């Protein structure tokens, strides 16, 4: 873990209220795992504002890429950062996804929840012979992010939108259930990796558990420190009150306790 002063290389609007931020971050990128996150000090906020946590979308060649949505005060202010600016980023933080899978790896994301799945897809393809498929949900086509990049990795992509503007109409569980049924019917091994809104993660966890597959679920909890020091970011698990920032953000599906 380092608190690195990173110089901004590129900051672009990718539509739908989402932006992509690229920074030079050699120290953090050196030992990052897919599913880990970074804690960003937003330079435009005053000194008493907390940092904001974001997943690592991509990391390589000393460059760290984040993909984020503007939702409030901090992400709005972060939008003002320009190429050449310096920002402080603490990372890499938390426990990420396993970097190997056996059989088929089903990656499930919703909204900015696809962010950690891109580096994960790259790692899985590099470290194992797993077949990787992405299931991605959103309200509308604008919430389905980075599809081209995922496709360029050579993986199959199954979008679903509530309004039917892209892919299947309905929740991401519609195409996911078809795939799980097909894999289960042929007794083919698979694992599930998911990140997104809580209701989606709960639905995915239930499916992992009921199909006997391993499920790796990345949770999103409000944080203060991001390093395990303050106990603000609690996720209930079979072990009790776990800290999302250090014992997570990725938890095994069977360990999660839903309220």
């Amino acid at each position: 873990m380092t608190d690195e002063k990173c110089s901004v290389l590129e900051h672009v609007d990718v539509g739908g209220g989402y932006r992509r931020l690229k920074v030079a971050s050699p120290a953090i990128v050196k030992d990052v795992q897919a599913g880990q996150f970074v804690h960003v000090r937003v330079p435009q906020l005053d000194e008493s504002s907390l940092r904001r946590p974001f997943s690592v979308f991509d990391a390589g060649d000393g460059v760290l890429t984040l993909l984020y949505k503007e939702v409030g005060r901090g992400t709005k202010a972060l939008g003002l950062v320009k190429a050449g600016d310096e920002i402080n980023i603490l990372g890499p933080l938390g426990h990420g996804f396993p970097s190997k899978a056996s059989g088929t790896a089903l990656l499930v994301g919703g909204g900015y929840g696809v962010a950690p799945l891109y580096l994960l897809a790259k790692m899985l393809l590099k470290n194992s012979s797993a077949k990787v498929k992405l299931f991605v949900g959103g309200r509308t086509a604008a919430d389905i992010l980075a599809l081209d990049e995922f496709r360029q990795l050579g993986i199959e992509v199954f979008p679903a939108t509530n309004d039917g503007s892209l892919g299947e109409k309905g929740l991401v569980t519609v195409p996911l259930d078809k795939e799980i049924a097909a894999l289960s019917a042929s007794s083919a091994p698979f694992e599930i990796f998911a990140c997104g809104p809580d209701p989606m993660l709960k639905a995915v966890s239930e499916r992992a558990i009921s199909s006997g597959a391993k499920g790796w679920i990345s949770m999103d909890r409000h944080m203060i420190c991001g390093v395990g020091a303050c106990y603000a970011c609690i996720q209930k698990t079979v072990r009790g009150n776990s800290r999302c920032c250090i014992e997570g953000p990725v938890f095994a599906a069977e360990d999660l306790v839903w309220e």
Partner: protein
Amino acid sequence: MIDVSVSLGALKMPSFIATASGTFGYGFEYVGAVDYSKLGAVTAKGIRVEPWPGNSMPRHCEVPGGLINAIGLQGTGVEHFLSITVPWYRMQVPSVPIIANIWGDSVESYARVAAKLGGAVDALEMNVSCPNVKAGGHTFGQDPKILAEVVSAVRKETKLPLLVKLAPNVPSIAPYVKACEDSGADALSLINTIPAMAIDIEKRRPVLANVSGGLSGRCVHPVAVKMVYEAYRVTKLPILAMGGVYNAKDAIELFLAGASAVAVGTSLFTDPGVVSSVYDGVVDYCSRHGFSAVRELTGALN
């Protein structure tokens, strides 16, 4: 060379900066991000005898100039602290003294945790801003008589340097300072968080699951300066001062008001580099103003 070492009673600190309890985990979580060579002590997160789950989520919210928290003292209990946490801390951070912050819900439970800790840590800090279950939920720190009782009970059980951490929400600090002095405290910690609350106007509900919490950060600093100033005028006990220290100026204000050492807390969350910047800034101030030791700053108001 400026002498940066200070002491709080028998607790010798290699530097004048500590970390505030609850903001720095058990001391090792910030390895890699904080320059430990500039720390004089770390204060661990509050512990009591038994494990405690803490409050429901949400446990915090950001407010202008600060933070309201209601973590609720989640912890694994003193046995785990002694067998796992302290040895791990000593291995990770061999050179920085550790202060255990203790709490309880009765006089006896404070005494018990102090007794169990023995000499495993370098000092004890009592958090007396907890409800006294046997006395209708009033906090120990809000009645000088009960405060004296609980401090005496802990004093009997420990030979370690004993700090008592006082709450700022009292009409006058003097009777509490006196109670600590008379019951064997070696030093005071000032200030704990200030009771506070925020409401989500869209949901028309309190933001925190616990309804209210404790305010800390930038906005509490002037309150800390005043409490330290008032306590210093009525006591010889050394003061570990905290509350909204974000830079060297904030720390120097507390020294001039009467602090013997300062702690950083909420500011660490935004900038773990605050330890270094406060350290360097205070040393620089001492050279510019002709002080040869940081301890000469204590109470050095004109």
